[in-house]
């Protein structure tokens, strides 16, 4: 059972499954993911590469069409409308105006042969804005992301801008349509550390000002800790733990989360060795029986390989998918 509350969720992902269709069958990449995002809430989705977190975002936007990866089951509801299986016409109406996405690599996410301002404006015009209206809106949103001289910058090409500026442009493009939900696919991963903090601060400011809901995907727990209110941890296509950030950090209920936290360098003064998680994530085509974390889990019991644990409420508002209660964990 997923963690839901009384406030009507803005985005309700229920049992979403995404798979890679090939000649030998369907390889599951996202397996039964359920997650709610309430209006104005900041939710983080954390996991290693290949855990399926980016695919979850793309599936929500319906951007998997035309690739060999496709949604194989489940539902994604935005406000009351079902997005999975909806015709492109319907999805187009939502993209940019209700739900917008920013991507990891700002260089490849912007068309190199078009001016930056035009790329922002075309989204607005696709939603019915006039040429003048789109232009004004573009300049306004470029100013909102703290880019200097918006009029001149709008006429620039992507290769003329620095990485940080390109990322701000991408955020501006996402905000231009005044969406209610922002999906962020590791937007700071490809940037320098100093720029990362600036972008994070920018998104935080924008989120506050607009009361925007944000689903932030990252593999960096540190970034998650700074920004999100609620944290979901993904492993091998499943959510294995979810709950308020502070609670999850203070007392992780899943061995994987605990291992991730141990791997984050601590500035608290204790000089302990950085924990490493031995092994590597499983091949989605060859998942071990039962819980997929068993091969790398320090707490694994024989029973863990028999059944795949379901996400269950634990203490407080934290839910975890593990058969071994924390009290029985070996040190």
């Amino acid at each position, binding site marked *: 059972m997923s963690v839901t509350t009384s406030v009507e969720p803005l985005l309700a992902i229920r049992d979403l499954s995404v798979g890679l269709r090939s000649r030998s069958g369907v390889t599951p990449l996202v397996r039964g993911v359920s997650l709610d995002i309430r209006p104005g809430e900041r939710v983080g989705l954390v996991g290693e590469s290949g855990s399926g977190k980016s695919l979850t975002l793309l599936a929500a936007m319906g951007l998997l069409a035309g690739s060999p990866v496709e949604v194989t089951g489940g539902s994604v509801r935005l406000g009351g409308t079902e997005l999975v299986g909806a015709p492109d016409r319907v999805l187009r109406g939502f993209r940019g105006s209700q739900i917008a996405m920013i991507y990891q690599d700002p260089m*490849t996410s912007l068309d*190199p042969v078009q001016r930056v301002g035009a790329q922002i404006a075309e989204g607005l015009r696709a939603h019915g804005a006039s040429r003048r209206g789109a232009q004004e809106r573009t300049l306004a949103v470029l100013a909102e992301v703290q880019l*200097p001289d918006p009029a001149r910058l709008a006429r620039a090409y992507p290769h003329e801008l620095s990485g940080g500026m390109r990322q701000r442009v991408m955020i501006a493009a996402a905000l231009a349509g005044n969406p209610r939900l922002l999906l962020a696919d590791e937007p700071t991963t490809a940037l320098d550390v100093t720029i990362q903090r*600036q972008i994070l601060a920018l998104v935080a400011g924008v989120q506050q000002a607009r009361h925007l809901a944000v689903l932030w995907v990252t593999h960096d727990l540190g970034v998650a800790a700074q920004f999100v209110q609620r944290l979901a941890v993904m492993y091998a296509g499943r959510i294995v733990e979810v709950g308020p950030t502070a609670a999850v950090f203070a007392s992780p209920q899943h061995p994987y989360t605990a291992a991730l936290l141990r791997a984050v360098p601590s500035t608290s003064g204790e000089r302990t060795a950085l924990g490493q998680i031995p092994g590597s994530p499983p091949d989605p085509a060859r998942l071990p029986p039962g819980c997929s974390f068993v091969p790398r889990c320090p707490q694994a019991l024989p029973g863990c390989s028999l059944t795949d644990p379901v996400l269950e409420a634990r203490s407080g508002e934290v839910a975890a998918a593990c058969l071994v209660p924390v009290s029985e964990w070996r040190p």
Partner: protein
Amino acid sequence: MTVEDAGARPLAGRVGAGPGRGRAIALRIAARLAKAVITLVGVAVVVFIVLRLLPGNQITSSLGVNAGLLTKAQYADLEHYYGIGKPLTQQFGQWAGDLLHGNMGLSEQSGRSVASLIGAALPVTLELAIAAMLIGLVIGVGAGAVAAAAPGRLPDRGARLVALAGLGVPSFVIGSGLVALLASVFHYFPSSEGFASLRSDPWLNIQQIFWPALTLGLGIGAAILRTTRGAMLDVARRDYVRAARGRGLAPRLVVIKHVLRNALIPILTMSGIQFGYLLGGTVVVEEIFVLPGLGRLLLMSVTESDYAVAQGVTLVFALGFIVVNLLTDLLYAVVDPRLRS
């Protein structure tokens, strides 16, 4: 990677137009022109040397067997006339000098000036080349875009099959087949009445140009089809195309504004390459369809050892090739803003 500063500093002068950019563009054009001139001179030298190195000389070629009947004095006179005994550099200098004055020498066979022969033949080949290139581009980009729109389906497989035929069947086979077909099955002989210029009889001219242009255009179209299809499929997978869809753009708009626009770069490259093959193709096609163009002129001059004409036509062809390369280079800068700074 430098430590970037994404907002505090005002924009550096890179962005936007300004007097600096105009000068940069002018410099680029000048550099390209200089390279083109050097290549042209190089080609001229190569052509000159190759033709001089070939066995036989102007005397034996124009008199044939009768050259043996010349007395020593007569031979010496002719040698002097043709400048045969002089050192090569002097001969080249003389020829180059004449060339710059617009004097390309006289044709052995007809006695007319080479310049006038070329002047008469050039418009024909020009018309043929342009028509062939247009047909090739229309077929290539059109069919390529259709194929890329639904990869793996029937229009795509059909288009790729046709492309294979266009690439694999030599233009002389297509041309011969067409002529045979038109003549024996349809009893259609547009070339029988002698060539009509565009001005004197437009309809006949179009008929006479269309079939050879189609022959060449099929080969060009096949190559451009493959390039267009590949490029569009490749670009469609890129992140920025997905991002454009993510902003709510309709699929058709995405294809036109983003996919096609970015695919133009490799299409432009292939078009330039095809033009190179086109020049050689005119020789064959003008022969088959009996068009009085430069290709046919070259073929005749080479088989009849009319050196002056052969030199002149080869130079004109090389010039055309170089000019087209230059234009393609400049077009790149128009299509791809990254190449402008």
